[in-house]
């Protein structure tokens, strides 16, 4: 392979990897703190994408503005689901495995609900729009401005959130809940507040990522599940509850998929994704950073 191709794979892989990282961090926050598995994460991304699409198509609102709106909408939806379904159940269900299975089945219902509601309201047509498609050159590789800005926004949010968790008192509280929920409760942490926070931020990140992705790819009601799968691979690679791990994992998966597609054809992208997914869970359940789950 020539140097130029490798460079191109690096640029494309890392830019898309930033967005994967953002998606995975949102999902990891719920899994890490509460053991809640949001398999409908991708459907929140889909809703964020439609938000940006309609705001741009109808009112020509910049995607970066509608990304903020999508994040607020996502947070509201997260809070709603937490209030209605999880706030009582998380108190009664004790074992982490039971929470995982319970939330998996609940969100499975949410997935079917949202996907078909989207089909009903917006039909199954491909929806895309043209925004910021001028190319800039990055050391010889042409890169569309929307891709560059979307990945910069995604990585900035991931890093910002990571620093927030590391540097503030509330961030420390969240990390304490990730490490040991019961011990955190013993020293006076209001676990419910942390849960509420994680539901809001996790869903907000998904909505935001969806808005950013809508600039790059066309949206259909069915784009959700592959993104959820991607996020799960990233989380397994980087470790549950490990935000920095998700960041590294996201970039790595971006590179793997981009390289795989570059060597075969775009028709293989989902095949590669699911192949990597099965292989990672089978052979690397402890992830790249090697911290065992249980």
């Amino acid at each position: 392979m020539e140097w130029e191709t490798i460079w191109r794979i690096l640029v494309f892989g890392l830019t898309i990897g930033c967005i994967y990282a953002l998606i995975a961090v949102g999902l990891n926050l719920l899994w890490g703190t509460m053991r809640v598995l949001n398999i409908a994460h991708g459907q929140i991304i889909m809703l964020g994408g439609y938000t940006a699409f309609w705001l741009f198509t109808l009112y020509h609102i910049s995607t970066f503005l509608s990304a903020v709106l999508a994040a607020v909408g996502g947070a509201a939806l997260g809070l709603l689901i937490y209030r209605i379904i999880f706030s009582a159940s998380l108190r009664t269900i004790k074992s982490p495995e039971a929470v995982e299975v319970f939330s998996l089945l609940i969100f499975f219902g949410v997935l079917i609900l949202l996907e078909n509601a989207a089909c009903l309201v917006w039909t199954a047509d491909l929806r895309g729009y043209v925004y910021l498609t001028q190319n800039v050159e990055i050391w010889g590789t042409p890169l569309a401005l929307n891709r560059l800005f979307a990945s910069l926004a995604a990585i900035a949010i991931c890093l910002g959130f990571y620093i927030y968790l590391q540097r503030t008192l509330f961030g420390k509280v969240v990390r304490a809940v990730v490490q040991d929920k019961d011990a955190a409760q013993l020293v006076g942490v209001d676990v419910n507040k942390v849960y509420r926070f994680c539901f809001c931020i996790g869903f907000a990140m998904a909505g935001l990522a969806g808005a950013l992705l809508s600039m790059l790819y066309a949206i259909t009601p069915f784009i959700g599940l592959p993104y959820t799968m991607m996020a799960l691979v990233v989380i397994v690679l980087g470790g549950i509850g490990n935000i920095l791990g998700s960041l590294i994992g996201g970039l790595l998966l971006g590179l793997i998929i981009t390289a795989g597609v570059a060597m075969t054809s775009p028709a293989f992208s989902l095949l590669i994704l699911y192949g990597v997914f099965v292989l990672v869970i089978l052979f690397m359940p402890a992830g790249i950073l090697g911290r065992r789950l249980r």
Partner: protein
Amino acid sequence: MTPKTRMLTILIPIFIILSTLPLYAPAYYISLSIIIFMYAILGVSWIIISGYTGYISLGIAAFFGIGAYVTVLFWTTFPLPLPILIVLGGLVSAFFAAVIGFPILRIRGPYFVFVTLGLSMLLKYVFEVYQAYVLKRVGIPLLGPPSMEVLYYSLLVLGIITIVSAHVIKNSKFGLGLFSIRGDEEAAEAMGVNTTMYKVAAFAISSLFMGSAGAIVALRWTWIEPHIVFNPMITFQASIMALLGGWTDFRGPILGAVVLVLIAEAFGIRYPYHYLILLGITLILLVKFLPMGLIGAIERLRIGKKQVSEVKDAGS
């Protein structure tokens, strides 16, 4: 009446009605019954692994699809007699389940759920690539499929075998071992249950029936493509039916299949999205309020709350 005779007084009339149905019922009811049978078989075979051991598999479509594909590939290239084709479809599916069972059944909880879902999506894309690059066409048309009555009776026989197997397994030492895995796998292992072999055997048996069902139903559809037979909706619907009915014995999935297929028939064709939205809401409500399913709820009314909570503790 003992429970056994009571069960027989219910089952024998049902069996007589079902086995004579094609003689007098219009074709529409036969084709509706085929769909109900298909989901009932998938649901009952699903509980053999997921209900008994607690390993929730979202890979139903994978095993169904393998059975379907094997049969259709043989049917179009090298036509064997129908019973052999059905058994072959089931056996290939069971063999595949046994081979992948060893690595994937070591994985527990959500990881197992994901890996089965991922595997069935992976198979769908593998077969899509196979269609596109090896067969060089989108799907396989099916010429001269067997008549609907033949398929109806094949499914009926398969259904009876599946139900009897599920029932016999539940009341055997093997079944006790499977339920002990669900209760506490480490304790079961310490008590001398060969958990790996038990899980793989249950996984392979359940895939045998799923694959055979796929083999029969594929012959009913006259056009086969990966997108249709590996459709994750098959997994979703079959597992939701089992959850709706109750997933600790064979009655639950059958009840769930009858209820949901009839609802799907009433709404699903004209309002497919409304039906699926309803299905999603049903699942959420079920998991939140009715974790033991309809059969569990009926039993709760019958024998009182205290005993059910004991059953629940033993089961979860």
